């Protein structure tokens, strides 16, 4: 075995130039693939994080069926059991309970439809930093009879801080809901969608308004590390009564977002696919030449008693080693660059004002770090290994059918 390794290694270097060219082409493919995917995954990770942090949280708990049909009648109590579950998991930092429903808001002769979010001001600030969005007035407090109004809503209604907002809706199980709340602050969102329809009440105030004391429509989870999300989800799913509750990840909460990412990454996958097809043909060309050149030698080896299996293994090792060298070199070149952009995120705002404006609309800066994920590196290595292993079948088949007399008649 070690003899085969040694032979394979030396054989690789018989034609130094060809080997180096082959390695360089694999290096380039792996380098490019790793770099591109790291940048892309990093950017999408950042976008997703922003969206997640901005309202939804990484996961939510609802009454089963709530997300399908969002009705205040599907609200639930925050039981000790759920609190206990959250407390027992070190990865869940906080629960942000909310009561959300639609209502009609009016000021003087103006009316508009709004989404009322009853939430705990402190916890909301901890997760979504709502307090940092205040552009006028001050942030609200728990227990207060006061409302925070999104800037777009305020504009439509021509309402200012200190004015009183009238809110009317249908409450829990059809009760009439009506209330008057002084505007304590105005919050500004980047997204025009949200800006036009969000108003925030302290949780208790919202529960009274909707006639749903101690009830919630959702529990958003603030977690310590998004990498732990799968564990947290399975922890909740095994410990919660899933016939009563649904536990949803942000991916399930925002399938459109996930789809947008899929569409974008699919484009890159096609580029990578084409790149790898080209590389595959390149490697195959090398293998063809190598096999042709060495036919006589294979004949000699067979004549003096080397088994076909051992010869096949030797060739396989040669080709896979060649691929591994290229893949390794590609990773070694890509790593510092990816690491650099991981620690020094690209600020697209500096590159293009349009981009800056576009992202700021959604409430975040277009600063994207590269993702430093070992799986991106690992996949390239596996891919090259698979490609070379499959290509190596060709010379192995040749050797299987080789007749020493014919091989040596050349």
């Amino acid at each position, binding site marked *: 075995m070690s*003899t085969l390794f040694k*032979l394979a290694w*030396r*054989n690789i270097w*018989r034609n130094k130039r060809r080997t180096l060219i082959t390695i360089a082409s694999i290096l380039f493919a792996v380098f490019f693939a790793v770099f591109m995917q790291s940048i892309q995954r990093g950017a999408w990770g950042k976008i997703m994080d922003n969206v997640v942090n901005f309202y939804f949280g990484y996961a939510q708990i609802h009454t089963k069926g709530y997300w399908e049909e969002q009705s205040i009648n599907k609200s639930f109590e925050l039981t000790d059991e759920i609190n206990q579950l959250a407390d027992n998991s070190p990865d869940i930092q906080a629960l942000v309970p909310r009561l959300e429903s639609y209502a009609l808001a009016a000021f003087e002769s103006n009316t508009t439809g709004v989404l009322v979010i009853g939430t705990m001001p402190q916890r909301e600030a901890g997760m979504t930093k709502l307090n940092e969005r205040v552009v006028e007035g001050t942030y609200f407090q728990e227990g207060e009879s006061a409302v925070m109004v999104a800037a777009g809503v305020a504009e439509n209604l021509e309402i200012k801080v200190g004015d009183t907002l009238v809110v009317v809706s249908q409450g829990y199980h059809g009760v009439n809901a009506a209330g008057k709340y002084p505007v304590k602050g105005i919050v500004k969102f980047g997204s025009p969608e949200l800006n036009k329809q969000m108003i925030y009440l302290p949780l208790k105030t919202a529960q009274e308004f909707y006639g749903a004391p101690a009830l919630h429509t959702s529990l958003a989870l603030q977690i310590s590390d998004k990498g732990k999300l799968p564990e947290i989800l399975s922890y909740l799913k095994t410990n919660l009564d899933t016939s009563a509750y649904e536990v949803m990840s942000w991916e399930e909460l925002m399938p459109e977002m996930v789809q947008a990412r899929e569409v974008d990454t699919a484009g890159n996958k096609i580029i990578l696919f084409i790149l790898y097809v080209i590389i595959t043909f390149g490697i195959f060309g090398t293998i063809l030449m190598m096999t042709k050149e060495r036919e*006589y*030698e294979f004949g*000699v*080896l*067979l*004549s*003096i*008693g*080397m*088994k*076909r299996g*051992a010869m096949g293994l030797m060739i396989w090792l040669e080709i896979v080693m060649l691929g591994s060298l290229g893949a390794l070199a590609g990773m070694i070149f890509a790593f510092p660059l990816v690491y650099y952009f991981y620690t020094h995120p690209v600020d697209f705002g500096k590159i293009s004002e349009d981009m800056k404006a576009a992202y700021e609309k959604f409430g975040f800066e277009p600063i994207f770090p590269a993702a430093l994920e070992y799986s991106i590196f690992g996949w390239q290595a596996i891919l090259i290994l698979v490609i070379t292993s499959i290509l190596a079948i060709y010379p192995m088949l040749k050797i299987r059918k080789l*007749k*020493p*007399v014919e091989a*040596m008649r050349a």
Partner: protein
Amino acid sequence: MSVIIAKGIKKVYNPKTIPVHALNGVDFSIEKGEFTAIVGPSGSGKTTLLNIIGGLDNPSEGYIEVGGQDISKLSDNELIEFRKNNIGFVFQAYNLIPVMTAKENVEFVMLLQKRSQEERDARVDELMEAVGISDKKDKRPSQLSGGQQQRVAVARALAPKPHFILADEPTANLDSKSTSNLLDIMANLNKKENMTFVFSTHDQRVIDRARRVITIDDGRVVSDEVR
């Protein structure tokens, strides 16, 4: 005792397309320890005959027995095994594995046979000495002259102590000095190791050194003389 017996050997290449009758009924037998030259002009069938004796190729017709075994009946894998254990080949040129040193080339078949390190080392030293290239042990074939390469090839063929050494025009690419040198080495080893040597040639200087000369022409034995 006859160790090679050939009876009515015929070989037709491409029987279905353009048949080439390379051997047209060859009969002979060779005794243990003989030093035999198969002589004939180019295209007379020498290579074909040696390949059949060595189990690299099958006859189209006839009986071939080598070392007491009817080798026409062996499967591909059995033939590889048979060659590894019985036959040492020396070809016209490009015999050696270019990525191995002289020493590694000589050692290789013993390695395939899983002989011990000590046995291999001893045998390699002995043979390198015998063929006179002890000082070139660690050289790659490309760093050796044609004559030196053929001496390494002879050493490699002899290394696993096969019963037969088959050499197909081993001196075809050598100058006269290297030719006589190689023949001295082969003749000495033939005596010393008591192996049966069969080699082909059309070089008169080589023919003169053989103790038995089987002449073939057009795929037939035309003369067979022992001196």
